[in-house]
């Protein structure tokens, strides 16, 4: 299990606001790593910085041994690091199929068909709605589409930003089941969640963020029974 992503001392600002302070962490191949924390703790900012939409003022981000800290978001995707953004952000005016094709933008046309079959196997619902316009899908279906779209890029590391946000409890369970399935199939996953309990229960390792800093880290199974974490994030 080699190191696939290594974040070193990043600092991210929104104007004068210091959103992420000296964050460092690693993701190893085949792992599910989760970042948990309250609203505004800097989880999404961290993911957006890794994916190149935001820039860190300091430090470095290495993906499979290469620095990606100065790379444009499209180049980072080409390298195999793909994010499912917060709020899903599927293309509402495009069909399900077109959304999935956009996910495979960096890949040769000849490989798209095979990936489509794989995505449809994972999300049969998407196949039923293949020609439907994205905007007409339900929230759960949109989340499935956003994840399927990311998988179309055949990522070496997939980052999920709040995949359970705004979904009914039954769908939350389904989405976490799918994340587990992806993990079993060999995917490496970096998961950001406010639903700390669900995230910790499937994660190999976890980092806890508070006001832009990592305050705790450890195995998912350990943190889930940590009394401090329990009190602050698990509502128990």
């Amino acid at each position, binding site marked *: 299990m080699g190191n696939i992503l290594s974040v070193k001392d990043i600092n991210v600002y929104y104007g004068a606001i210091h959103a992420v302070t000296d964050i460092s962490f690693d993701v190893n191949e085949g792992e599910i790593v989760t970042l948990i924390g309250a609203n505004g703790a800097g989880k999404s900012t961290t993911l957006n910085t890794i994916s190149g939409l935001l820039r860190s003022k300091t430090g470095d981000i290495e993906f499979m041994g290469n620095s990606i800290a100065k790379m444009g*978001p499209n180049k980072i995707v080409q390298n195999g690091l793909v994010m499912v953004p917060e709020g899903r952000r599927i293309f509402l005016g495009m069909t399900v199929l077109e959304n999935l*094709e956009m996910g495979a*933008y960096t890949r040769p046309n000849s490989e798209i068909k095979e990936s489509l079959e794989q995505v449809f196997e994972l999300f049969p619902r998407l196949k039923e709605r293949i020609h439907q316009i994205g905007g007409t899908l339900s929230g759960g279906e949109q989340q499935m589409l956003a994840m399927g779209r990311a998988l179309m890029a055949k990522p070496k590391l997939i980052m999920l930003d709040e995949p359970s946000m705004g979904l009914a409890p039954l769908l939350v369970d389904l989405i976490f089941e799918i994340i587990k399935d992806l993990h079993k199939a060999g995917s490496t996953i970096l998961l950001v969640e406010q639903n700390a309990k669900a995230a910790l229960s499937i994660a190999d390792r976890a980092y806890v963020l508070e006001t832009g800093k990592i305050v705790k880290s450890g195995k998912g199974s350990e943190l889930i029974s940590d009394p401090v974490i329990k009190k602050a994030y698990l509502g128990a």
Partner: protein
Amino acid sequence: MTFSSLIAQFINGLQTGSVYALVALGYSMVYGIIKLLNFAHGDIIMVGAYVVYYAIASFALPPMLAVILAVLVSTLLGVTVEKVAYTPLRSAPRLSLLITAIGVSFLLENGAQLLFGADKKSLDPMVSGSFQLGGVNVSYAAVVTIVVSVIAMVALTILVNKTKMGKAMRAVSEDMGAAQLMGISLNRTISMTFAIGSFLAGIGSVLYLCAYPQATPTMGSMLGIKAFIAAVLGGIGSIPGAMIGGFAIGILEALVAAVHLSMWKDAVVFLILIIVLLFKPAGLLGKKTQEKV
């Protein structure tokens, strides 16, 4: 007014409407992708017209070659303007971008005046002659204009809906950030949009010369504004909207002329703009802007 003269005016309207539609497409596509009203777009047509004029009058090139050259220069000019003037302002407020566009327009118009002089340069008609169709006199220029425009629009529709590049353009215009997360290059896609819009403007400039064979430094400004109104009428950002809007404005102008109110032509078009903005700001086919919740 006889029925045949009404038909004749209708064909005239389709002819100018085709040109408006081609130019409106450029406005609409650029607005769709970077939310910029590119007021320099009309002036691309002016440059295209001068290219045709000098290619034929000074270098005696065959008209077909002059046409190709004009379309090529227009396309390159559009992309260059985007790279030099708009790309550095990608994250600037939209007002800065708009003011820059107006500046580029002034630069092109005054630059043309400096280089080519303020007098109009007249050409021999590139397509001459006409034929009778059921008692109506139809010029070949009108036929060429309408046919070429329709072909260009069909090709554009296929490009935008079926090709990878076209889909990437739609993705960027819908959500720039999400499009980048697909691996789409913003710079390339935006340049491509400008290239296509300016390519269509280049064709528009040639077709405009078929109807009015002369070039002046300011010819692009009124034409650009009419095309802009066409784009607003159709729903700015919408490709079929720009086509419908262009034809509608052209036909409307022709009908105003048909009832001997030619002098009111421009006023009527601007009245349309006011009415659209008051009662249907999103235009005929425009998307309603949704507030994010």
